[in-house]
């Protein structure tokens, strides 16, 4: 997922798009498959998708931009999501998030200067009885305090 990865080839993109075309409503699965492979939905994929689904490129972009998940450029090497929703707020998630952003010197959606970590807000991870909750890539973490957060960030190389 690193930023220096070479741009995906048209061939790779076409293969991934083709692998989802048998599905009913294949567009979201296509976006997910591309993002799993390349860390984002590469610009070059839009015309390929438009062509395969017989819709306009603007429509493809319109769908993609509707969803918080899909990225136009890859995130940092790790994505740390911090829950901002009510149950986590009830146990201090706001303050935890504010301190974390300050420490990293980034805003929400920002990436640390060394490219190691992108910080995203998330609205509930289903860990509401053990908040504040966070997720590092796909790994869930509960009862996050400053010490736990520092450890997670250090492990992620922030």
């Amino acid at each position, binding site marked *: 997922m690193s930023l220096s990865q070479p741009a995906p080839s048209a061939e790779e993109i076409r293969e991934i798009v083709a692998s989802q075309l048998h599905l009913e409503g294949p567009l979201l699965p296509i976006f997910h498959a591309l993002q799993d492979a390349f860390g984002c939905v590469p610009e070059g994929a839009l015309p390929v998708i438009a062509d395969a689904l017989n819709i306009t490129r603007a429509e493809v972009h319109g769908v993609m931009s509707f969803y918080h998940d899909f990225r136009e450029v890859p995130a940092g090497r790790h994505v740390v999501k911090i829950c901002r929703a009510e149950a986590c707020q009830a146990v201090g998630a706001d303050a935890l998030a504010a301190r974390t952003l300050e420490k990293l010197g980034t805003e929400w959606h920002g990436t640390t200067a060394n490219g190691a970590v992108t910080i995203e807000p998330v609205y*509930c991870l289903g860990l509401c009885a053990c908040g504040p909750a966070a997720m590092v890539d*796909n790994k869930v973490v509960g*009862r996050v305090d400053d010490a736990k957060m520092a450890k997670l960030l250090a492990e992620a190389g922030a």
Partner: protein
Amino acid sequence: MKIYVPLDSAAKALGADEVAGAIAAEAAARGMDVQVIRNGTRGMIWLEPLVEVDQDGTRVGYGPVSVEDVPALLDGKLASLGPVEDIPFLAKQTRLTFARVGVIDPLDLADYEAHGGLAGLRRAIAMTGAEIVKEVTDSGLRGRGGAGFPTGIKWNTVLGAEADQKYIVCNADEGDSGTFADRMVMEGDPFCLIEGMAIAGLGVGATKGYVYLRSEYPDAIAVMEEAVRRARAAGVLGADVLGSGKGFDMEIRVGAGAYVCGEETSLLNSLEGKRGIVRAKPPLPALEGFLGKPTVVNNVLSLATVPVIFEKGAAHYAGFGLGRSKGTMPIQIAGNVKFGGLFETAFGMPLGTLVNEVAGGTASGRPVKAVQVGGPLGAYLHPDQFDTPFGYEEFDQAGGLIGHAGVVIFDDSADMLKMARFAMEFCAVESCGKCTPCRIGAVRGVETIDRIAEGDAGAIPLLTDLCETMKDGSLCALGGFTPFPVMSALTHFPDDFARQKEAAE
């Protein structure tokens, strides 16, 4: 020796994987014969990782267990919680939907069957579609996704629709803060959801199902995908469901981080590969749903309750509950809470009993200030309203809603103006953009609350008017119900809106 360590996300988030690994390693080092089984969670999250050791058929609990506790656990020297099923939080529950969650190995179909699984589907196979739908109607089951619409009536509409293809769509978008019951079912008893969807398919004549599962739940996605593969391999899904001669198969589809896609028509658009814009109703999804075909859209809990209704009978299920709220509700207790987790009980328990007795009040030990029930669109209730029984109509009368039954507890450090502002901010971030009162109104709402925070009391009537406009002019409950948390905060906690004024003067 059998040792159970949950694979549920909440348990993992508190270290269950590390504990399971340490138990296996320590047992191997000692040459002990230990089988580590990864079960779902029992739902007592404050005890996670809750490890259970099978002692002559009784499961004895230990928790929370850390990696450092593992040697003592295997020495038999760790203090135990006693038999898990005797722990009061669990013993007080009526578990119908959640009967197997935490008990079985979620991906072991034989274990599932040994605990009553597939009995409901087998019974349904011997029934006609109309009989299946009638059984659901008779059970009194109402949709657990939020609106509480009678499930049998919805199924009957789809049954009566003529079409070459019908669909069952499971709404597993579970976006409400304070809710995790769908996740617990999918991680802890995935075959139950699959069985419920298969019964729905047989009932209404649908041969294809989808689970629209939020991307924020990677563990649930993995368990569900594996469960579908195993169910297909075992002939529970496929062209000939359990030898019935009838076909039903399903797929897992992953959402993409939009809260509004939990709204059923937005979900259907998303599933079709479109922007998740809410559709006007009519047409009902039951008549023109996925790809324009008749579609049952039901919440995970609604569908996962279907097997027990068929296993034990509609009358058994309808025998629990209060008034028109029949059966049991898996209530999720979260936030600043001492004993947080999943508590399934018959409808009717007063909110205060849940908060103070079952959940033990706040984790901080400070007084309870407010309780938000029903997710980000639910009202903030004041302790003065704690005698409200947990039921659809009862909460409606109290100016709230039970929604997906998330109960989020706040202590007296909560600032209700800030919570009202957050409700507006959330609506602005998540609005699908179709109606102006929601899209623009929520942004104005944030600004108006900021003015109140700066001491402009004159902005309070503006906020009230704005909420009226949002209620009246919104197509769906995102814009239409955001006024619930906002106005309940303002009405029940006026000091938080006035104190700000003094502070600013």
